[in-house]
């Protein structure tokens, strides 16, 4: 799907620091977990932006910031060119109608004591202007049909459904307010592989039908490649590389992206033994005390003095066609797909 017109979502220098405090009564701040530290990107209408990165790199915090569930330390989120103001109720309410989320675990994201009808109908009770009271039940049944569930099951409880069906219920709840953006926080990682494909296909079908834009957060690189138009790679609270999916997967220029891609399992046994594997040394540094300059330098095989001194900006580098935050960015096809 080709991006068109103005971006629907614009994120500028988004920062979230969680304070680390000491003491019980007189709390004093001794530091901060820099979960998200200056993230900027744009999302176009009907586009899917995949966000990948290892555990603890700030993907989920980014999702919470986008959903206005956490207050950003600084930075702005603009939807349709309008800044989201957490302190203005009407603004926030309008914003919530436009951006919804699908959560990771379908077993905990549905209230076990509500019927499916109540779960999917709750958005209408909160945003009463979307659907008049008499229409709501019909709308819920329509939504069930849209996500491929039997509308007659409206009176059932979540535990009467399988994991994949529950995730469909979660998607139906997200669709209820007809948002333009859906943030999917690892929507398939809790599901069986066979069910993953069904849910992914459903998400793609809904995107075509309703023109949705997705932020698709995942750590499964193949899934992200399949669904995304563009991909952002995060490391320790920052985007290190962002570009079209083909650019990222076939022509990765940041060493971290290359290492990440080299870890993707290859189903074909031919040549599996001989392909290049980049194995990073050590663990990711603590986000409370990230390295100076480039955050990846402690594990990077290309690191030089400049990496410790100067922070590489996310920009188009010589020899690459997309933005990369590395002083020594250089296209290196690790997967060997092109």
């Amino acid at each position, binding site marked *: 799907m080709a991006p068109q017109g103005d971006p629907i979502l614009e994120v500028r220098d988004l920062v979230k620091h969680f304070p680390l405090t000491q003491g019980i009564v007189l709390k004093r701040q001794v530091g901060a977990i820099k979960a998200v530290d200056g993230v900027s990107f744009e999302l176009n209408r009907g586009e899917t932006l995949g966000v990948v990165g290892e555990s603890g790199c700030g993907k989920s915090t980014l999702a919470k910031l986008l959903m206005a569930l956490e207050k950003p330390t600084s930075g702005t989120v603009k939807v349709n060119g309008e800044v989201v103001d957490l302190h203005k109720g009407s603004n926030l309410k309008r914003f*919530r109608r436009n951006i919804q*989320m699908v959560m990771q675990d379908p077993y905990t994201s549905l*209230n076990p004591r509500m*019927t499916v009808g109540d779960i999917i109908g*709750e958005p209408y009770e909160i945003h009463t202007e979307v659907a008049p009271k008499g229409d709501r039940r019909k709308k819920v049944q329509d939504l069930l049909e849209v996500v491929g569930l039997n509308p007659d099951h409206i009176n059932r409880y979540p535990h009467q459904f399988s994991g994949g069906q529950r995730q469909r219920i979660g998607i139906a709840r997200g669709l209820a307010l007809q948002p333009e953006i859906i943030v999917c926080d690892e929507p398939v990682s809790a599901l069986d592989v066979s069910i993953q494909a069904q849910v992914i296909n459903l998400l793609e079908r809904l995107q075509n039908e309703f023109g949705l834009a997705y932020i698709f957060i995942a750590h499964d690189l193949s899934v992200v490649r399949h669904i995304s138009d563009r991909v952002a790679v995060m490391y320790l609270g920052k985007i290190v590389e962002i570009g079209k999916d083909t650019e990222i997967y076939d022509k990765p220029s940041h060493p971290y992206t290359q290492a990440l891609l080299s870890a993707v399992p290859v189903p074909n046994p031919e040549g599996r033994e001989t392909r290049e594997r980049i194995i990073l040394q050590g663990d990711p540094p603590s986000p409370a005390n990230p390295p100076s300059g480039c955050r990846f330098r402690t594990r990077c095989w290309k690191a030089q003095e400049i990496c410790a001194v100067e922070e590489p900006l996310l920009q188009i580098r010589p020899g690459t066609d997309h933005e990369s935050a590395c002083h020594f960015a250089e296209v290196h096809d690790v997967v060997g797909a092109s």
Partner: protein
Amino acid sequence: MSDTLTEQKPVKPPKQKRPASLWSDALYDLRRSKVFIIAAVLIAILVVMSIIPGLFSPVNAFDSSTCDLTIARQGVSSAHWFGTDNLGCDTYSRVIYGARISIMVGVFSTLATTLIGGLLGLLAGFYGRWTDTVLSRLAEVFFAVPSTLGALLILAVVGRDNAGIWTVVLALSVLAWPMVLRIMRAAVMSSKSQDYVVAARALGAGPGRIMQRHILPNAVAPVIVVATMNMGVFIAAEAALSFLGVGIQSPDISWGLMIADARNRFLQAPEALLFPALFLSITVLAFVMLGDAVRDAFDPKLR
């Protein structure tokens, strides 16, 4: 799309049009629960007994002229179904007339502690931070007072001249609500962090809706269990206070008072103790069964 439920369920095809909700489903379930029906019938009988005791007993136990010292401590007979007590009063009519105070103390103390402890526990668990600090420390102050000693003190001060059912309810409630608060707070804290609460917040639900629709239904089960068990504890505590001479006083009649009076002559006249104790047990059992049935009805997974 192949994982839609395709198998036909033979039973339960009718009421498809009925818009189900937790409440309507729970009521539907309760009406078909044997445990609930037995408990409800027992409680209904006990309530009628405490409102119009004359319906069950021809002898007015409040009238001391019906007692006859010459027939004290008799066993079961056709004239005195449950025998007679130390003062020759008919135990059966006293048990019937004693239901009122025992049940009122039990019910009202439970209501008061559950409402106060439940509400404050919900607020403390939901808002956390200083709300939690203030409410929890306050609860700990009351928790620190040994309950019998505290009740004795309250009754000695407040109830010196007007010892009666309401002062007993007050003394018991003031000391027992912190336990409910703690249980509610813990349950709320564990359901507050669930994903479905986050999802509701993302939809724009306010704190009131989140507490009412998402947290309370998922946190109330342990409180119901404790409340029904407390019912029996309160009736027994009322007996203990009456025995110590600060609770309900003769000529009022309560099961606790009767048990306390009959204790010393248990070997000569066991009936005078056994029958009020039996009624006490049945009452407590009925409320525990009721609590059990209600808790199960509000858990869809048990359906």
